[in-house]
């Protein structure tokens, strides 16, 4: 490393002489001349900078102390406001103690430390031919030593052992990491014939008569309280949620009932709430248009027309839950969905 004293250590990079005696390229003027800072020439400015730096460090100390004060004086009492206040005070005082140090150090480096530029040489990264030669020699010697070239069987045995040992780790891992690996579960939900439709999240069963035209209900299957406090429930609910609307029967242009069956009941249609795009719960229903919008990527389904996709990245209609009414007037499922709910997957139609 050499300190650059002479600003005009220009290297002539001219390689050949161009037209009419002019060099082909300009030459490097060298590192610009060092310009002294105010703190270099004026002792007063120098002293002032030093004082500022000292003050900044002192401010940092105060910040740290203030943080302790904030800790002891503002105790959270469980309210959001008090928690916010405590967060604010602890954070701001912490920031002061940190920024004090940071700004002081930077100012110190910029105003007081030498700002003379230095020049270091670079060396090409490639190693010299001699070094390479020795390196290659070492490796060939090593290979020679091990005899791997001559001992074919040994090589094969070593390679096989290395290839096989990861199985001892991978097989147990893979066997368990996917649970039971039974992907046919995608196909079924807990809806069964006769299961009542209930309001989400209360679990109260829904009477058909309670629904006026235009009303919307978020629906789950009726289940016991214990079941609804289990993990299994959350996973099943993730497939079983349904959105139900009561339309004017004349407004329904189509639904998904096959020939000879009726999946709707008196203008009430129930469709899976799991978007056929990538599976968000579809939740935004617009009365006038009968459009159901998925908030995730705005796929839009027409509830009056078999939940067909009218816009967005989804490709398939939401599957319909076939419903009927039981003796007591409650809405019940006729059966499970006829097709898997939610996003498509490779084996969906298999």
């Amino acid at each position: 490393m050499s300190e650059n004293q002479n600003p005009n250590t220009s290297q002539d990079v001219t390689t050949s002489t161009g037209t009419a005696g002019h060099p082909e390229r300009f030459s490097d003027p060298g590192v610009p001349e060092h310009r002294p800072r105010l703190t270099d020439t004026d002792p007063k400015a120098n002293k002032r900078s030093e004082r500022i730096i000292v003050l900044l460090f002192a401010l940092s100390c105060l910040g740290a102390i203030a943080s302790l004060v904030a800790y002891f004086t503002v105790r959270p009492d469980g309210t959001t406001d008090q928690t916010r206040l405590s967060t604010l005070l602890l954070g701001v005082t912490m920031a002061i103690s940190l920024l004090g140090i940071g700004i002081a150090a930077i100012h110190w480096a910029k105003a007081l430390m030498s700002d003379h530029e230095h020049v270091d040489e670079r060396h090409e990264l490639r190693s010299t031919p001699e070094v390479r030669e020795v390196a290659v020699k070492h490796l060939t010697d090593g290979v020679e030593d091990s005899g791997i070239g001559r001992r074919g069987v040994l090589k094969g045995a070593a390679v096989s052992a290395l290839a096989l040992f990861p199985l001892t780790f991978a097989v147990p891992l893979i066997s368990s990491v996917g649970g039971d690996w039974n992907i046919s579960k995608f196909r079924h939900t807990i809806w069964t014939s006769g299961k009542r439709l209930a309001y989400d999240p209360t679990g109260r069963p829904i009477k058909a008569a309670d629904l006026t035209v235009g009303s919307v209900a978020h629906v789950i299957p009726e289940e016991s309280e214990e079941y609804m406090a289990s993990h299994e429930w959350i996973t099943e609910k993730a497939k079983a949620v349904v959105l139900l609307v009561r339309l004017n029967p004349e407004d329904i242009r189509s639904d998904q009932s096959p020939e000879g069956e009726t999946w709707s009941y008196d203008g009430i249609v129930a469709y899976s709430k799991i978007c056929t795009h990538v599976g968000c719960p579809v939740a935004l229903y617009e009365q006038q248009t009968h459009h159901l919008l998925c908030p995730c990527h705005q796929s839009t389904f027409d509830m009056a027309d078999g939940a067909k996709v009218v816009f967005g990245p989804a490709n398939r209609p939401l599957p319909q839950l076939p419903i009927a009414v039981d003796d007591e007037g409650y809405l019940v499922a006729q059966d499970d969905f006829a097709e898997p709910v939610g996003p498509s997957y490779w084996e969906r139609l298999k």
Partner: protein
Amino acid sequence: MSTETASNTGAPTTPVGKAADYLDQRTSIGVAVKEFARKVFPDHWSFMLGEMALFSFVVLLLSGVFLTMFFDPSMALVEYHGAGPETMQGQLMSTAFASTLDLSFDVRGGLLMRQIHHWAALVFMASIVVHMMRVFFTGAFRKPREINWLVGTVLLILGLLAGFSGYSLPDDVLSGNGLRITDGVIKSIPVIGSYMSYMVFGGEFPGEHIIPRLFTIHILLVPALILALIGLHLFLMVLHKHTQYPGGGRTDKNVVGYPLFPVYVAKMGGNFFIVFGILALMGATMSINNVWNYGPYDPSPVGAGAQPDWYMLFLEGSLRLMPGAGTEWVIFGYTLSLNVLIPAVVIPGLLFTFLFAYPFIEAKVTGDKREHHVLDRPRNVPVRTGLGVAFLTAFIILALAGSNDLIATHFAMSLNQITWAFRILFFVGPVFAFWVTKRICLSLQRKDRELVLHGHETGRIVRFANGEYIEVHRPLDEQERWLRVNYDAHRPLEIEPATDARGVKRRGYKSDKRWQKLSRFFYEDRVEPVTPAELAAAHSHGEHDEIAPAAHTSEVTSGTDTVDRER
């Protein structure tokens, strides 16, 4: 023997000297200090961007360790009765969510740490991206730094993974829906998608394994990988020595700057505290991810206007823009969901492939095997700069499309219109951005030529004896000039002819020809730097010496001819 050695070098007398001696006799640390203490580093504000990424990562480590003391990554269901807000009392939730509430309301400074951690994650990703832009636009990825560019790109991907896995930990409604979208995307992968979904969730979504699994990924796997790669990244940086911006006395054979100790030690140390301080300030004053407002994960509700963290928006936008109709194919009874696969797998795949491949493609079309340590001014490599801006444009359009519902409500426009506008923009925007950027670069280069040839306008008008008015131009000083003439305007590759001297068809000609085509795309339009001869010619032009505006010399050369293509 040891006393002899000590006396040879003069036995240390001070405590520091003794300690140093002790250490050196056991570690030869003297060698390292000699090598590194006064190592020269070039200075520029943009070199701080990588540092910012590093320091926010350190803040992530510190605040993350605080969080791990109290966060409980369990999906066991509990009925909440704790310090959290009224609305959460009595709710059924996972222990992970409950412990996030306690971490926020019960642990002193816990909310602050959560918020610092989250802001640090956002700043971490932002500084990685901007750092990457700096490296790209200045050509710092060129030989010998291609490998470090790859390391950096892997770090970017790991950062995305870290952010995503952390975001999902509190097990709230929002992040749960994010996971659900991820599940949908995984399922769209042909052949193995369903099994991969089972692998990730340990069964069906959401199951009871995902949070503990993400926790291990988030606090062990990914940070360890990031740490190791940061180590490699910095090791290579020191090995290569830092690049420097062009300027007087800076060449590919030297490095001009300030010594590590004390200047950079102070500056970097200072920067760390400033980054930490700003993140603390953000954590103190800007609330983020108030999970108690969303509630614990429940597969049924979802709010409109929910946004993922910014670095995930491009994926969200990509999913939103893809039209669904006709893009789900059934082949031999198997379902191929192109409507998910293309936006969520193919498009990000292409974006990252571009990032991984670019340095090698540019080296190939430039036919350049030299080491580069002096950075390019972005204008001097118009096509690279254009491609970078095009890439960013695509990224930004996707990210904006990820907020199309907010844009729609904010500007009272219909979602359909906005989505269609973005669909078109996604294809047109980057091309347009490329074209505009390239033009701007070329005209900046021309302006540089103009300046070098004719100097600064001074605004001073003089009148000649013959009545002619002329503005006085002040010539550039040699530093100013050097900055503007010291670059290579690369030319398209020249390739060997299709047949050799004996008329035999040459193998590899076709591929050479393709590379040449690409090379033409890069370097056909170019502005050559002013040569001394041109400057002299401009000066002797007319009697006005250096004050007259000289006639244009040919500026833009192209291929073999000298047609001025740019106007």
